[in-house]
């Protein structure tokens, strides 16, 4: 992602709930001088985008926050990928040699990185072994952004004793957490309302982007943002759209990143969409923040219909733009919504179609649910709330 504008906490006054920014500043004063270091294994991706922001904002608050990158050899990258997949529940061959590489890389990085801080937060599995070299002066937290509920047992049995050397673990959702003997805290992901993905957009800017994507704005737009993979059920969304189409003249937009090699559903989706000009299948360019911002603003109803999902923060990004969401109960989707208030949870194609029809037939509900959704996100899923959680974590663990 291209670096966004250098934002100060003060800039969030316009979007955060009343009193929040001042309270964060006061909380920062209480923790002034504390040193907080994050360690991740990559400079890129959604986590890195968040860390870029959090380092700036926490430093702005007076907490000396830094970010270190754990590095390894080329085979360490392969090991990391296999471990990530195995923790997500995709069976992998994990050898003793791979686990040894994880430990060696942890030890190498522990010698190289500057980890002298009051609180060290190690993100995800690749650098997890750093903790084996920890001193007693700092408190250590493992932040796991993955769903561990179906982790490969052989791997998790090997990693759990390492994880239990931390003082605490942080998960994004209770249902993603694994049993551990250390305290487990839950910190939901959040959206940055001032990022390119979520900032306000003029109608003309929005129109330019939609023209570039070749999506007419002559009909209500149903939108699903997500990978073209079977577990995100894009074909199910097309089937729901077809049921809706019998009653309402709408467009369907399916937007997702270029598919990873093998196992993707893009071909099926393109085939299913090929005979209907009102279905647009958009393979997004790299770093599609502005495109997604415009698409979500142009949408009438947002859909998230995965069969299995991670936190799926796209629910909050759509709600922030005042859109009702029709979502399944997978992953973090139902935790971001207030059922029947900010949208509807559904379990089937027919359920999705029924709820979409209900909203299209009652347009005043679309506005009401959209407004409730934006307020719900303002209070629960903005970056200011996540900063507050981090400050609470620092205060609690370093007291």
């Amino acid at each position: 992602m291209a670096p966004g504008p250098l934002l100060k906490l003060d800039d969030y006054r316009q979007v955060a709930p009343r009193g929040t920014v001042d309270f964060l500043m006061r909380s920062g004063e209480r923790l002034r001088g504390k040193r907080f270091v994050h360690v991740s294994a990559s400079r890129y991706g959604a986590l890195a985008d968040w860390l870029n922001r959090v380092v700036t904002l926490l430093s702005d608050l007076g907490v000396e926050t830094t970010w270190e990158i754990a590095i390894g050899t080329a085979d360490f990258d392969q090991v990391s990928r296999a471990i990530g997949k195995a923790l997500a529940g995709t069976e992998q061959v994990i050898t003793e040699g791979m686990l040894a590489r994880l430990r060696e890389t942890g030890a190498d990085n522990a010698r190289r990185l500057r980890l002298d801080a009051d609180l060290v937060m190690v993100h995800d599995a690749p650098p997890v072994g750093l903790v084996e070299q920890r001193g007693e002066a700092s408190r250590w937290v493992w932040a796991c952004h993955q769903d561990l509920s179906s982790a490969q047992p052989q791997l998790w049995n090997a990693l759990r004793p390492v994880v239990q050397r931390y003082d605490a673990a942080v998960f994004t959702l209770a249902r993603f957490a694994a049993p551990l003997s250390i305290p487990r805290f839950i910190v939901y992901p959040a959206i940055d309302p001032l990022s390119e993905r979520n900032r306000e957009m003029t109608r003309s800017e929005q129109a330019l982007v939609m023209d570039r994507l070749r999506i007419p704005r002559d009909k209500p737009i149903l939108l699903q943002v997500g990978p073209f993979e079977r577990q995100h059920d894009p074909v199910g969304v097309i089937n729901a759209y077809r049921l809706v189409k019998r009653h309402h003249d709408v467009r369907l937009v399916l937007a997702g990143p270029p598919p990873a090699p093998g196992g993707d559903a893009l071909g099926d989706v393109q085939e299913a969409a090929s005979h209907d000009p009102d279905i647009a299948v958009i393979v997004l360019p790299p770093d599609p923040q502005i495109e997604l911002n415009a698409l979500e603003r142009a949408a009438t109803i947002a859909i998230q219909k995965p069969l299995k999902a991670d936190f799926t923060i796209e629910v909050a990004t759509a709600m922030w733009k005042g859109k009702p969401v029709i979502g399944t109960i997978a992953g973090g989707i139902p935790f971001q919504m207030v059922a029947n208030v900010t949208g509807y949870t559904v379990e089937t194609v027919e359920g999705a179609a029924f709820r979409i029809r209900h909203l299209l037939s009652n347009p005043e509900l679309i506005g009401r649910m959209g407004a409730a959704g934006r307020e719900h996100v303002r209070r629960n899923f903005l970056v200011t709330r996540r900063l507050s959680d981090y400050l609470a974590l620092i205060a609690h663990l370093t007291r």
Partner: protein
Amino acid sequence: MSETQPFVFLGCLELNELLPHEAHDARELLEQLERVPIESVFCHTSASLLHRPVLAEAYPNDFSLWVGTEVRDVRLAERLAAVDPFHAGSMERVREELIATISDHLQHLGTAPPRSQGKRFRFFQVHLVPVPTGHQARTLVEFRDALAEVDVSALFYHTIEARYRAGRGRGDFAEWVGGALGRADLADRLAHIDPHAGSLERIRDRHLSVLGDAISGEAA
């Protein structure tokens, strides 16, 4: 003449800890309620206000919400919703009432209780870190103006946390207004605002309304 003790507003940072207790049906909920730390009962009843949406959900605590939406036992959900921390007096009393309600329901059920159709109930406890908001008040007008500005967590800290966990009388607002300002009548009115009746913003509005009436009355 002694100077009025100022009211110092405190907000709170919150950190949610997942406990190793969970339930799939009402019987397991009952068993776990007997075991969990009292902080967890507080977290799922009074502290659920911290994350209550703008439009309040149908049920006022996490137990009734889960039983109603996931187990789909509306009868038990309605009875659990009626367990009222505002009148119970202490969190241990709330725990007793919850346990008694579920026990009675199970006794009369006759069959095995239905299992959750979706999410299991996971017990949490919440850690609060109090932080001064920077607002102080010595008069009713200053108090009202500060209350309108502070982070919403201050409403939670001074009404819910003070009253139900820390045991500070009828809550910090009522105690200060009655004690430092000597306004027993107004303190009574503030103490009678049921903090479990809506979102924290709604509670703020109700306090501001009561304070506004009192200030107008003084001016008249």
